[in-house]
């Protein structure tokens, strides 16, 4: 075997390993979907049944009928969209100010904002709860949305992008007599569509998924989010794994759609923040 064929064979082996790794990463999801179509006895049967013998579609309506999952789904979507809108608007607004203007203490402002990356809700759980209670926002959409509506990550991501926009664009608009807010709204925003798309996808994903925060501030059935509903399902029917997997599979659908539709924006968002310092 000469050197060329040897490196060819090696290349194929590495590719096969990469594919095997991908299968390993996806296996839990495959098992979830497969189990969601099985009977309760079949899910724990040995030898393993990779595919259900005959798919039980009724697991889905039966699982979703146990709790008002439609309401939960709606609440999660409202929360994720509203938080996303806040992140896009306030994030890009602050980022524009930080990237293209000079004013005293600008660097300090930026650093103070960045430092809040180290203050996630998990750390500030108790005091944030108390603030939201003082504002009278417990058990309300406002309580779900407002504390999350501005996020340092979004500001950081947008600032990276806006810094690279040419100054001449902004100066030209200023000479044309555009107001400062007009410049932001009509010139800057349309020019950072890729970054906005990336932030939108990342933000929606993260907030559709919020669990701890709704868990702490929501007790009304009508305001519960989908993750809370799933956790509740687990608490009440922990033996019905086949139905739980059906409910979980439904909870996965918005994320998968989002990812498949906006894969590029998604990956770009992750990379925009990592690339530069």
């Amino acid at each position, binding site marked *: 075997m000469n050197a060329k064929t040897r490196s060819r064979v090696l290349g194929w082996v*590495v*590719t096969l390993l*990469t594919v095997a*790794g*991908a299968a390993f*990463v996806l296996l839990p*999801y495959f098992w*979830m979907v497969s189990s969601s179509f099985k009977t309760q006895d079949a899910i*724990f049967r*040995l*030898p*393993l049944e990779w595919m259900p013998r005959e798919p039980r579609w009724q697991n889905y309506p039966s699982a979703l009928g146990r709790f008002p999952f439609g309401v939960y789904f709606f609440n999660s979507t409202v929360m994720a969209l509203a938080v996303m809108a806040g992140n896009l608007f*306030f994030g890009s*607004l*602050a980022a524009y*100010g*930080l990237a*293209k*203007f000079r*004013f005293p203490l600008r660097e300090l402002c930026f650093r*103070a*904002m960045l430092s*809040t*990356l*180290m203050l996630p809700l*998990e*750390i*500030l*759980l*108790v*005091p*944030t*709860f*108390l*603030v939201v209670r003082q504002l009278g926002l417990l058990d309300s959409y406002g309580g779900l949305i407002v*504390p999350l509506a501005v996020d*340092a990550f979004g*500001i950081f991501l947008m600032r990276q992008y806006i810094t690279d926009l040419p100054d001449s664009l902004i100066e030209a608009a200023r000479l044309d007599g555009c107001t*400062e807010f007009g410049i932001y709204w009509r010139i800057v925003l349309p020019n950072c569509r890729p970054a906005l798309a990336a932030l939108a996808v990342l933000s929606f994903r993260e907030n559709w*998924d919020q*669990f*701890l925060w709704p868990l*702490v501030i929501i007790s009304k059935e009508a305001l519960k989010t989908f*993750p809370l509903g*799933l*956790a509740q399902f687990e608490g009440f029917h922990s033996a019905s794994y086949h139905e*739980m*997997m059906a409910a*979980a599979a439904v*909870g996965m659908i918005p*994320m998968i759609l*989002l*990812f498949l539709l906006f*894969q590029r924006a*998604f990956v770009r968002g*992750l*990379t925009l923040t*990592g*690339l530069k*310092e």
Partner: protein
Amino acid sequence: MSNGLPSVPVSLPQARTAARPFSLTYANRLRVAGFLFVLPALLHFALFKFYPMAQALLLSFFRYDLTSSPEFTGLGNYRALYENPLFHQALGVSAKYTLGVAIPEWFLALGLALLLNRAMPGRGLIRLAYFLPIAMSQIVVALVWKFLYHPHGLVNGLLATVGIGRINWLSEEATALPALIAIGVWRGVPLFAVVYLAGLQAIPRDYYEAASMDGAGPWQRFRWITLPLLRPTMLFVMVMSLLMAMKVFTNPLVMTEGGPNGSTRVLPYFIYETGFAFFRMGEAAAASSILFGLALLFTLVQFRLLRRGLA
């Protein structure tokens, strides 16, 4: 000039005289405009980050159960934590979880990124397969893995085919935390591989070509081109992976409720339990302050180390 402003000489006499009373000079108007753009975000952070942070510090010196009014206890909450064996246990569990997840992530994610950066048939599809799980909900992950770790679940089913007996993954002290760590790694590696992949793709091809022409082998190219140029990416991955692992909450709550015997009670879960199950808000705030101190320390130490590495 990289910054967006034309340099206006503010101090010129005519600029001053030209300004009418109550009107701002051009440069000052821009300063104010810039500040106003940042102001809404600043106010939000003041209300939902800095004030709560101060509040947490303050509250950590009080006894407070949400209903009766707070009562000053000095360092009482910190002493209570110091004397609480469950807090010591939670610190240890968090440390083990955080390092157990983050350190494998650094290496496996870089390895995966190198694999995915190679030319191979169907690369787009393979990348998609690795990246798809990044989009999954935490709660779905928790439920699915609870099912997989079930005594009669898939993990034991697969082990049975190679003759390994049944293990009660989540209800044995020895295996519960490692089982959660495995999930953290499985979930984090693809995420950070995306970040590394972007870093790898930003390295100009000609560097490698030039090095090859000078006779550098694959290892030398990796050691002297890839590694040094990936430094900023590595810093990002190290800090983010540690911070992410430190705040893990959903899995311990849904899968083990911190058990068995507290072996998976990480610090965020301890805080949640102390505050919202036992209503000892002051003690929870004290524990939060300590967790924040640790996060800060980690981040600063890493910035120091990597900055020195860069110089």
